[in-house]
């Protein structure tokens, strides 16, 4: 079941289309990576999901009904540009934002104390926000975003400005929320964390959606029949034999104990054909398929889409 259905959304700013006929679906209970280069239209889409701006054409459905203001009050939203009242005391401010989300005073206090403890920022409870470091402010904002345990959560660049330790803390929180049944839309440029925590992705470039799907499925779609074979000993004939059989040797890496071959298998051959050659000329240590990284898919797909678009023009 999809919690969010975006149908043929177009958003115009004057003559410029920030989003052009974009459709996508966010399955319930997944971590959804919203990817794309700077200025692609990710934030515009997110702002429409939060009903901060409205589409000129198309419609957004939330839990099978048209998205309404009441829906957004249930959501959690961490905007890309963070902001808090600078002069207000940290604890007071967190209480205020949590209570605006509908938590009772006691409940908000209880949960905030626990989270402040967990994030190690309890001593800042009575300090004004302007005395906090940027990372600390981000933590506060993240806490107030998730405190009311929203079933749907939008995080726009949540990791920017965090050190590795805090990034991990955040990832754990996201995993925890997911295990509790929340759906999380994540916009980020950090492809490593996308591979780590996202189940689903959509790639937007120049106002168009160019890719969408389950992350494993996407990776398989763009795999290039690349394999890695590690051997402990090999015959000098191996390289020549590979070439004779139309296998393309991309890389050969000697790491002391093992030598690693990276090879592309042509359409006409199978994995077994390759292994037979290796069995004949070497002692195989390991054999793996190399799937493309999200980073590679991102760059390749964006460049390709740019070329077609330029070509169309």
């Amino acid at each position, binding site marked *: 079941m999809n919690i969010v259905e975006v149908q043929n959304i177009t958003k115009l700013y004057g003559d410029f289309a920030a989003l052009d006929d974009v459709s996508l679906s966010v399955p319930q209970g997944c971590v959804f990576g919203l990817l794309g280069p700077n200025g692609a239209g990710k934030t515009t889409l997110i702002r429409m999901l939060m009903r901060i701006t409205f589409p000129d054409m198309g419609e957004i459905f939330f839990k099978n009904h048209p998205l309404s203001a009441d829906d957004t009050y249930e959501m959690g939203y961490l905007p890309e540009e963070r902001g*808090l009242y600078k002069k207000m005391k940290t604890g007071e401010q967190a209480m205020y934002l949590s209570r*605006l989300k509908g938590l009772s005073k006691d409940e908000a206090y209880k949960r905030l104390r626990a989270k402040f403890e967990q994030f190690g920022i309890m001593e800042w409870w009575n300090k004004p926000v302007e005395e906090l470091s940027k990372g600390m402010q981000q933590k506060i904002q993240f806490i107030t975003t998730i405190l009311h345990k929203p079933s749907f959560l939008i995080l726009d660049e949540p990791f920017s400005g965090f050190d590795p330790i805090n990034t991990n803390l955040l990832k754990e929180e996201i995993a925890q929320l997911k295990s509790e049944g929340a759906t999380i839309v994540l916009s980020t440029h950090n492809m490593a964390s996308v591979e780590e925590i996202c189940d689903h992705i959509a790639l937007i470039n120049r106002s168009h959606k160019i890719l969408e799907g389950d992350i494993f499925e996407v990776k398989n779609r763009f795999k290039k029949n690349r394999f890695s074979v590690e051997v402990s000993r090999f015959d000098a004939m191996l390289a020549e034999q590979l070439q004779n059989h139309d296998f393309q040797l991309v890389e050969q890496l000697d790491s002391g104990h093992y030598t690693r071959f990276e090879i592309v298998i042509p359409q006409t051959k199978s994995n077994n054909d390759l292994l037979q050659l290796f069995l004949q000329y070497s002692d195989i240590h390991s054999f793996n398929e190399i799937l493309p990284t999200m980073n590679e898919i991102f760059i390749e797909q964006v460049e390709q889409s740019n070329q077609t678009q330029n070509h169309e023009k």
Partner: protein
Amino acid sequence: MKNKTFLIISREYLTRIQKKSFIIITILMPILLVAMIVLPVMLVMLNEKNQFSRVLVVDESEIFINNFQDNNHFEFSYRSGDIEQIKKEAFDQDFDVVLQILDNSESLKSNIYYKKNLPSGLESEIENQMDDIFFNQLLQDSLHIDRARYDHLQDLAKSDAVTIQIDEKGGEKEHDSDVNQLFGMACGMIIYFIIIIFASQVLRGVLEEKTNRIVEVLISSVKPMQLLIGKIVGIALVGLTQLVIWIALSAAILVGIQLAVPSLFTPDKVEAVESASVGYHLPDSASIDVAPDNIFQMIQNYFSVSFGTIIFAFIFFFVVGYLIYSTLYAATGSVVDNESDSQQYTMPITIPLILAIVFVPSISTNPDGPLAFWLSMIPLTSPVAMMVRLPSGVHAWELLLSMGIALTFLVFCIWFAAKVYRIGIMTYGKKPSWKTIFKWLREK
């Protein structure tokens, strides 16, 4: 939902009244105000207590000999002879001042010699008495009448205009237009300052949330309208709190002073202050006829105008004026990205208010003229202009019409601000043109 609006109101209110600047201004203002009232009275008292001077008059013209009047502060003695010799001896003989009057047919010239301190008021006391004596002499010599006769004649010729208002029931009420003018001007100024101070706080608050981007988070929790109402009401309560504390604190301090020094506020002393230091003479109708028991009755006697109406109108124009300006300012804060840009938009609405202040003297001298009338009808100027006019008395229909127009305009302002604010706070970058804003107004 209501709960959330209340939450916003209490945040806006609490964060502001907890500020140091708020607390300082709230406490300091009444103290300054009371000091302005009390200090002149105390100075007069000090004078009365401590000052007694003996003056030795050396009059070469002989006009003034034995003509100076002794009073509580000054005692005059006379001597003739060599001035240098007298100066040497006089101060040893317990005189404080030697007054030398030179014989000069052209004009009256005199020297006042003193050693330690020149007693305050001595100079003017001597000048006044000399003028009087000289004038009496002139009357006697040239017109051959005495002073009493002259005063009587002058009383006959004197005109003393009293303004009397006839109210609806045909009753007559005596006003003193000077007091009314002063009171009206004060009310108008207070309204002006309150509007400017607190409406610009609304603007800054809206702008803070917008530039902070915290508004994006807030809007995912509450409706823009709740945010707007919360801010405007919260800041209005801050203003009211300040006003109430000012009034209560001033009253408390005055009561305290009166209890501590009961003799401080008696009519004759206040009158002495009025005429001596302020240069403004209290009218007969105000405080001389009725001997007030305490300071409050005395203050009330100043404003023997329709007090209830004035208070009602003051509260009305305070609230409506504030709401008109704060909604418009909030709309302004929502369309700009920084404070300096906001002036371009607030200018057209602030200029009428400043004009109203500029015209306050004209309005108060001619409260029924066309300028006063129209300024008290135009909603952007009426809060100030009407308050200036009111103590001098306006027709009931004029007051009601002015209030009606202001209310109608307020409804328009709320509609306008709601439309603009909702879109404005979410729009960054390019400043919207008036044309764009007009487009927003038509959006559903």
